[in-house]
């Protein structure tokens, strides 16, 4: 943010009025900057806000004056969704699948990244390359055989695990790629000291490495959770009826109640709340993880 203070003083508007040699710091941008920021914000949250407010209106209101505020505010759309057992069932399925995916990704990812980061052995780099190449395999490519494997060969078609396992598998390469440099950066002395104290490498992993890797694990965990929570294609092929996740539920509701715009808005708004809360709580981690991925 330090860089921002300097550039902030030399806005294009002010440049014409004053000479260029000014290192004086000042807070705040020009009105133009705020105006542009406002436009960007309106463009960004406008549709979301319209959906949330639309849920408080009736279809008659929406049809009569599409671009107006609720008048009067009606709660029936939202209470309708909240008393709909399907909604809660979908939310539960989404949560369990996301938690399972996250658990597999974090545990298996940490375990795999450990020897790849801190052991010396002949197959280390080739093994790591297997995971790196995994980044190039889009899930879409494998989707048809996966569908057959899970539903026909493993008979896990309509189950939580049937979705969580392949989702975790496709998230593992990114996890290993993010975690390995993280584990490499922890000082070697830690390992030597604990081995001298008689700890086994497995003991070192559980007692020293895992507690120290909290931030790295949270980052990959958050990415895995959000990815699973939002995923659509694999659940679409594998889950039916009361095993469906929220994205499937939203899509179904929207096509079954296509004319009930207000109801669709209420359902969608409630479905986006968990992701938004999770995001607000974990914002730094998500952004940090994405940056890490970009740098990696």
């Amino acid at each position: 943010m330090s860089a921002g203070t300097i550039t902030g003083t030399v806005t294009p508007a002010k440049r014409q009025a004053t000479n260029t040699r000014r290192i004086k710091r000042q807070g705040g941008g020009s009105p133009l900057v705020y105006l542009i920021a406002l436009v960007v914000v309106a463009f960004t949250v406008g549709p979301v806000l319209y959906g949330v407010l639309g849920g408080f209106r009736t279809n008659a209101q929406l049809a009569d004056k599409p671009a107006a505020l609720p008048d009067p505010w009606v709660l029936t759309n939202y209470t309708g969704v909240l008393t709909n057992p399907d909604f809660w069932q979908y939310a539960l399925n989404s949560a369990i699948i996301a938690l399972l995916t996250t658990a597999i990704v974090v545990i298996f990812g940490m375990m795999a990244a450990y020897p790849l980061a801190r052991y010396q052995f002949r197959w280390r780099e080739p093994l790591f390359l297997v995971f790196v190449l995994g980044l190039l395999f889009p899930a879409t490519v494998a989707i048809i055989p996966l569908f057959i494997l899970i539903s026909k060969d493993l008979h896990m078609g309509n189950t939580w695990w049937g979705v969580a396992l392949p989702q975790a598998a496709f998230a593992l390469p990114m996890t290993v790629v993010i975690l390995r440099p993280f584990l490499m950066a922890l000082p070697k002395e830690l390992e030597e000291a604990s081995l001298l104290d008689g700890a086994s490498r497995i003991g070192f992993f559980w007692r020293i490495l895992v507690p120290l890797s909290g931030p790295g694990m949270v980052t990959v965990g958050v990415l895995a959770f959000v990815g699973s929570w939002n995923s659509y294609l694999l659940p679409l092929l594998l889950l039916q009826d009361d095993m469906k996740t929220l994205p499937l539920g939203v899509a179904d509701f929207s096509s079954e109640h296509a004319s009930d715009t207000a109801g669709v808005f209420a359902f969608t708004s409630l479905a986006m709340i968990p992701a938004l809360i999770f995001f607000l709580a974990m914002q730094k981690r998500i952004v940090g993880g994405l940056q890490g991925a970009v740098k990696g």
Partner: protein
Amino acid sequence: MRLEILFFVAPALLVFLFFVVWPILKAVQFSVYRWKGYGPLVDFVGLDNYVSVLQNDVFTGAFTHNMIIVVLSILIQLPLGLAIALLLNRKMWGQGVLRTIIFVPYVLAEVIAGVVWFQLLQPQYGVIDTILGAVGLHGPEEGWLGTPDVALYTVIAVLTWKYLGLAVILFLAGLQGVPEELYEAAQIDGASWWQVQRKITIPLLGPTVRTWAFLSMIGSLQLFDMVWILTGGGPANATTTMATFLINEGTKRSNYGIASAASVILFVVALVMALLYQFFILRRDTQDAPRTKKAKR
């Protein structure tokens, strides 16, 4: 020691091999058979499925749409994202809130964003047509998503809304890595704001931009959710992508051979583009020294 390595790596490796590598190899196998999903794989047809996919107008159309989306996503989001990131990269009131807000669309599921936009874009009584109507304009008669010539660009507009925040956030993060001394030096030399951005900030942002563009490209090639929700590939196949094509063939028509051939083609396209990008563009980022020198000059 060997047992320990095995103990640690085996779970991840097994899951990866079983649910990623194996299905992809199976896709290659399915692609040379005519198979409807039941009975044994016996009807070996060699490369016939590939020929029929490549001669299918719907697939070549889908490929073209993917390419248009790849190119336009970068051409639209790069300048917009860069401009917004440069503007926001200064001390201003409400900066934290602003960054959070900009990132919101990216965190929403594509399905949820798609369903909301589908309602906004409804012909006549949707809010977008209403606003246009209020200023004397009107959208396409069949609706933004119902008019073949317009639908693809409408999808791209919605994708821009969904993914611009990611570009902005990544660019902002990249901007924080630019050393402050460079700005001070440039200002002492009398550089204008625009000169500073053009000669220092943007070149130093190069690696971030190039990696972002790579992610954007790979994402565009795999695009499925948003199209499936907004148009389902229609109207008249005007918005099909390679992914919607193969899902359609696989799940609706049970043409597993054809769908697998299409998925292998999608994989090869993505791989070739990734390698070309790596070779021609990302390679520059490994030659660190000359780049920094050039930027400082």
